[in-house]
């Protein structure tokens, strides 16, 4: 039966290859036409006609998309999703997605929009269409209240804790060769190193350190935004230009009323605090 096992393995491999090829195909062929294509996206008219828009959000990534103890969706992304449905005058259907399946949900048009803390990257831009950003993420530096580090230059000659493989590690290695890096495999190891005073400060994504400082009195995020800034934006199925344009207009219009500052106050303030400079995280009118 060994021979048959091999046949089984070969066919499994073939199925995998074929399905990968199918993914690639969809990427290439989904031009602007879209309408009649398999797994095709819905136009705004279709969404309005059905009276319902489906938006993919996280269900366990507080404070962006999560489900509260009453079983209701909450968070920065969800707040925006509700407004989109309201302005389109349609019902909102939220679909829980995972980081690993966000692109597929759009490619197969199982959702109209993804609003799941989706960082814009070059590679993803080839697979989905990103609208204007509504949030941004950069590096932050957290240090003890007794010796707050308030600029990156102050770190020269000091010891900075980083987690291996993060943007922070690369950024400081390349731009601040005089900073001594103390590297850890895990976030919790890094945080306890900071608490034990084994390093002068710790750097990683600003959203991460801000939230941590909020729940750990005695520590302050002295540097709230550093290094290259990543944009976080809504995404639609590649080629759904109409919906994309509508979203861009919506984001611009919402800028006038400072909608995302209100969103921050309603959802992020509890986690990042009121003292933070909101403009380090919030993007209004799509302008970074």
């Amino acid at each position: 039966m060994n021979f048959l096992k091999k046949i089984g393995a070969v066919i499994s491999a073939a199925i995998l290859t074929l399905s990968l090829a199918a993914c690639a195909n969809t990427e290439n062929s989904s031009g602007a036409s879209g309408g009649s294509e398999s797994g095709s996206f819905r136009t705004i008219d279709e969404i309005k006609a059905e009276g319902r828009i489906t938006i993919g959000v996280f269900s366990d990534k507080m404070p962006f998309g999560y489900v509260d103890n009453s079983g209701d969706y909450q968070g920065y992304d969800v707040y925006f999703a509700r407004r989109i449905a309201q302005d389109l005058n349609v019902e909102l259907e939220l679909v829980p997605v995972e980081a690993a399946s966000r692109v597929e949900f759009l490619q197969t048009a199982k959702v109209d929009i993804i609003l799941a803390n989706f960082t814009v990257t070059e590679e993803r831009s080839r697979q989905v269409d990103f609208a204007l950003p509504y949030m941004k993420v950069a590096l932050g530096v957290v240090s003890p209240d007794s010796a707050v580090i308030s600029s990156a230059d102050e770190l020269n000659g000091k010891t900075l804790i980083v987690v291996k493989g993060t943007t922070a590690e690369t950024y400081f290695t390349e731009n601040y060769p005089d900073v001594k890096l103390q590297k850890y495999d895990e976030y919790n190891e890094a945080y306890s190193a900071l608490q034990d005073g084994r390093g002068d400060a710790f750097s990683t994504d600003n959203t991460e350190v801000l939230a941590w400082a909020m729940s750990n009195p005695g520590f302050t995020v002295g540097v709230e935004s550093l290094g290259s800034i990543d944009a976080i934006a809504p995404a639609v199925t590649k080629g759904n230009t109409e919906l994309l344009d509508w979203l861009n207009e919506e984001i611009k219009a919402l800028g006038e009323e400072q909608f995302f500052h209100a969103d921050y106050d309603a959802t992020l303030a509890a986690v990042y605090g009121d003292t933070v400079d909101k403009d380090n995280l919030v993007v209004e009118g799509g302008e970074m």
Partner: protein
Amino acid sequence: MRGIEVLFLGNNMLRLLSGLWVTVRLALISIGFSLVLGSALGAVMTLKNPVVKVLTRVYLEIIRIMPQLVFLFIVFFGVTKLTGANLSGEVSAVIVFTLWGTAEVGDLVRSAFGAIPKHQFESGASLGLSKLRLYLYVIFPQALRGLLPNIINLSMRMIMTTALVSLIGVTEVLKVGKQIIDANRFDYPNAAIWVYAAIFLLYFLICFPLSLISRRLAKRRADK
């Protein structure tokens, strides 16, 4: 004990239970289909036809080699990409678990029948039992007895494996647990252990009676 109160906040207990129901429902429906289709497959597999033998064997190997997660992705996203048919997450999950269950049940049925000594067939036939009666009264009851513990075992594995369906947007008990932990991670940083303990208990409450039955059946079989 700090953190345990998270289980009783808001609707959390009810949400965990309805997540468990999603889990159990998926497993039950899939097992139901698997039993029917798997019995047919098993019957086909007992045929001595070499072509049938090779085809069924290859099917079995494919199912066993393919990780269930990959399978879920292929059915949930791949089918939509290829045909445009938009399957829901639950339907995709039932299809995947049924394909898997059918292969496993088929193989179990085949080996259960294979394990019945040739003399059982011959002595039944010698008594003048027609083929139908021979299977009905002599072969099926014996095969079933060997089969039941294994089927229960498979059901339990299926219940555990349903945790994967959160990747295709179906919220089952483990996902509900993660949502509860995450929503309370600042207020109750120690909630995780209690939520996982509760989920463990729920799984246990479902699986323990099954494993008891299975063990009892296996024992009874060994006695006879």
